[in-house]
């Protein structure tokens, strides 16, 4: 793959800004924490936006802003940072959602103690996430991938709800143990490279040259897949997620759903398909059906929830099912669908969790029934909720539409039956969202507790708007986003083709 060296250390800088911010938080009195974290996350977001100006869209498949700092030259481990189209999109999402999460926290009543630590963890988490999406060295990728666990462990465990300790514990154990397989997979790749070329290397570009027998490739693919399937999560590896989401504070859930889950899908695309294309083709039928199964089961779970937060959590699992189905269809539309859905879900799930958090702040309950008829008293909130929900449902004009539509389209390239199965999945997701809408707004309530509540405003409104605006941008002007990642998807597909033809 082509690499365009950066003249300006953009990525290291945008990682250093939050780290520097967290250092300041540590050194200055607690009352400055909010300001510092807002400021550093904001700067980080601006850097990400400005990077679009310098991004060469005509070469979006190449790794741009590339920089390499050797860490262990003997093993060729180094901080290889860069962005191709796919990473770019994830990078934008990370900085945007981190900023929104911090913006939200400023007025969150749940966050009233140990502020310094809270904002510190959020900023560190942002830095690690940027690292995950921009690393081209598998060992460094793993380090960042694991490091993102620590801030979340603390955020859930300290500022979460009632069962927070249990959830934090479960979250950590699930992801940590599954990623040990990933570690084994990564070092095995490096060892294979050594056996083939006489040198160790953890660089993605070098490892692309490895070749394996199908059996051994399958084994390595599975090592990677276990880790990412848990992280994504795909049913039945999803059980950590409702607990973690259900108990995390709002901003924690936002980051967890919008970005942390994307780490799994991003890595599936980048590593499972990129490094083992022939295995991906070999396993395609299984994985696609698995994805559809995941959509169906998770939708079923979703409908049976009465807790808004768990509802959104399960719906996330079903959305991730679309992402997985799309990517393993292994055609252009499928990849487009998958990447588009990743981005769209990042926005809608963040917004939905904020809606749940907003409800909790008002009513101290996540029970859906307690919100009956809120449209009457909180119109602005109702509008935002409806927009988000429709966007998440896949209504044309909303962000999730392209993901779902293109998945169906790409499945149709194989058989109509497959397309029909995906369609049923999409139907389910419409059902549960409409059900949510009905409960929240249409069911009337005689004496609403909501009469005295003020509508959403200030920091929270701006946090919402920061998400709703891009949601419709995705829906209405998808080509803007296709421009960013299309060439990378094509490059990925080319890898698959090349291996198939070559092998």
């Amino acid at each position, binding site marked *: 793959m082509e690499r365009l060296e950066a003249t300006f250390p953009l990525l290291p800088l945008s990682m250093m800004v939050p780290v520097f911010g967290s250092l300041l938080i540590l050194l200055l009195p607690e009352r400055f924490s909010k300001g510092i974290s807002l400021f550093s996350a904001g700067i980080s977001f601006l850097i990400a936006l400005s990077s679009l100006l310098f991004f060469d869209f005509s070469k979006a498949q190449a790794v741009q802003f590339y920089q390499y700092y050797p860490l262990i030259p003997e093993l060729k481990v180094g901080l290889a940072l860069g962005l191709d189209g796919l990473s770019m999109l994830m990078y934008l999402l990370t900085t945007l959602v981190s900023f929104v999460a911090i913006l939200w926290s400023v007025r969150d009543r749940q966050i009233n103690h140990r502020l310094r630590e809270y904002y510190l963890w959020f900023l560190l988490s942002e830095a690690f996430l940027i690292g995950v999406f921009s690393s081209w060295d598998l060992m460094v990728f793993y*380090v960042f991938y694991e*490091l993102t666990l620590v801030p979340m462990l603390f955020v859930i465990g300290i500022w979460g709800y009632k069962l927070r300790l249990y959830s934090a514990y479960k979250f950590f154990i699930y992801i940590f*143990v599954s990623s040990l397989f990933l570690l084994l997979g990564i070092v095995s790749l490096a060892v294979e490279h050594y056996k083939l070329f006489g040198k160790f290397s953890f660089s993605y570009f070098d490892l692309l040259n490895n070749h394996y027998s199908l059996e051994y490739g399958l084994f390595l693919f599975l090592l990677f897949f276990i880790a990412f399937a848990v992280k994504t999560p795909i049913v039945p590896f999803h059980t950590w997620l409702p607990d973690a989401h259900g108990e995390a504070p709002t901003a924690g859930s936002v980051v967890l759903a919008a970005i942390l889950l994307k780490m799994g899908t991003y890595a599936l695309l980048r590593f499972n398909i990129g490094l083992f294309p022939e295995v991906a083709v070999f396993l395609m039928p299984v994985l696609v059906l698995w994805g559809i199964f995941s959509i169906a089961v998770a939708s079923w779970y979703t409908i049976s929830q009465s807790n808004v937060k768990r509802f959104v959590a399960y719906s996330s699992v079903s959305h991730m099912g679309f992402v997985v189905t799309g990517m393993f269809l292994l055609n252009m539309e499928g990849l487009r669908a998958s990447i588009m859905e990743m981005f769209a879900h990042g926005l809608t799930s963040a917004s939905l969790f904020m809606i749940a958090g907003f409800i909790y702040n008002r009513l101290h309950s996540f029970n859906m029934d307690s919100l009956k008829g809120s449209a009457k008293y909180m119109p602005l909130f109702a509008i935002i909720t409806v927009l988000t929900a429709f966007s998440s449902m896949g209504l044309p004009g909303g962000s999730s539409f392209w993901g779902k539509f293109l998945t169906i389209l790409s499945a149709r390239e194989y058989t109509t039956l497959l397309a029909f199965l995906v369609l049923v999945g999409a139907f389910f997701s419409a059902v549960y969202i409409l059900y949510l809408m009905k409960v929240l707004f249409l069911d009337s309530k005689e004496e609403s507790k909501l009469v005295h509540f003020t509508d959403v405003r200030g920091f929270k409104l701006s946090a919402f708007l920061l998400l709703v605006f891009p949601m419709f941008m995705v829906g209405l002007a998808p080509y803007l986003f296709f421009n960013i990642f299309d060439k990378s998807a094509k490059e990925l597909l080319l890898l698959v083709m090349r291996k198939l033809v070559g092998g």
Partner: protein
Amino acid sequence: MELRDLVGVIEFPHLQLLMPEIIVLLTGFILFSLDLLYKKAHHRLFTVVSAVGYTLALLYITLNPFLSGSTFYHLYVRDTFSSFLQFFMILITLFVLAFAYRYYQQKLSLYREFYYILSFSLVSAMFLASSYHLITLYVALEGVSISFYILTALLRGDFNSKEGAFKYLILGGISIALASYGAAFMYLYAGSLDLKEILTHVGENRYFLVLGLVFFLIGFAIKIGAVPFHFWLPDAYQGAPTPVTAYMASVGKLAFFAPVVRIMPLIEEHFAYAWVITVSIISAMTMLYGNLVALVQKDVKRLLAYSSIAHSGYILAGISVAKVIGLKAVLYFLVAYALMGAGAFLVLALLERHPEWQNRMEEFSGLRFSMPWVATSFMIFMFSLLGVPPTVGFVSKALIFTTLSFDRLWWLAFIMILATGISTGYYVRLVVLTFMKENSKPFQVKSSLAERIVLIVLTLSVVFLGAVPIIIWSFVSPSAEMLFKR
């Protein structure tokens, strides 16, 4: 025979090779004499004299890192490998010393023999790292063991301490007996006590040699606490005064693994297949048992003792692949464990000074509010023992994985994943308790400047040496290659 011929054979001992050992030994003798001559000499004096002695030895090693050669008719070998291990042995001993003084003062059983026994044990440990000959090995092994028995029993008023020492003594006796039995068989086979000579003359009828090696290795397996020979270790670790536990866990591991590591290249040449099977099975058992039993412990000191057993298992996994890459991984792991193990136990030693502290798990609840910096440092040690990046613990586990994948020992790698998964249970529980629970009554333990420095150094080095592994690697790599070149 003329006198000249005789003089020709007599080797003039190269004392400069032995200098670090001589310095530490002299320190021990000075401390011993001080104890005999001045009945009222203060402990501070003992601490200072030991510290000066060890620092000198440390300086000598640091200034001559590439000193190598053998002396006393190959009874003693110095090479980069031994210098490397000895450096960390002395360093950790210095750290332990910083904690010992106040610990004993608090426990009101300040015995001055601690200081010189520590010296003698350190000298023996250093000899273990540089012996390549059954006689030196044997004497050094006995030296370390005997001083460990005494150090374990130093809390004379404490039943656990005595019980631990007694159990350790019995099993240690068995271990030494087996090791010497093994040595005898090897001598019977080769007519020599030089390990290199024994193993380079492997012929047809090697029954006695195999028998000898097996006995010899079981002796060492007892020392490193490998399952099923682990029985003494948890009791001894729990009973011993906590700074001593830190010393035994880290320096002990460095010392007892050193000879095993040293013979790895020779084993690879002749017994690779049998070695892989035997050691990998022992390693799997050790990892699983250590972690499973640690999971149900309520006493944190005992928990850490079992975790130490589990770590012996990880190291054995690296040893099972008797290749140069395995050796590098093992060396890195040994140093990593020495740092993080010592750190974890020293935090306990600090907390134990609080009169009501019982080392129970619940007592860690809310430690963050009582002593934030100690809690942070403890958290980092736990994460490192677990293997969260970017700590030394992570790098060492990744290296062991690399080794296993090199030999495609997948089953052992999966067992290691399983074992690490189990260990997540208790390490994360400790972190969760420390940081996420509130505590009912905050408390404070005063720490001396030296103790604070030691904790800071250990914590930072656990993170820094993990984030920049090349530092240890650049010592590990040549040492391992040197051992294989012989």
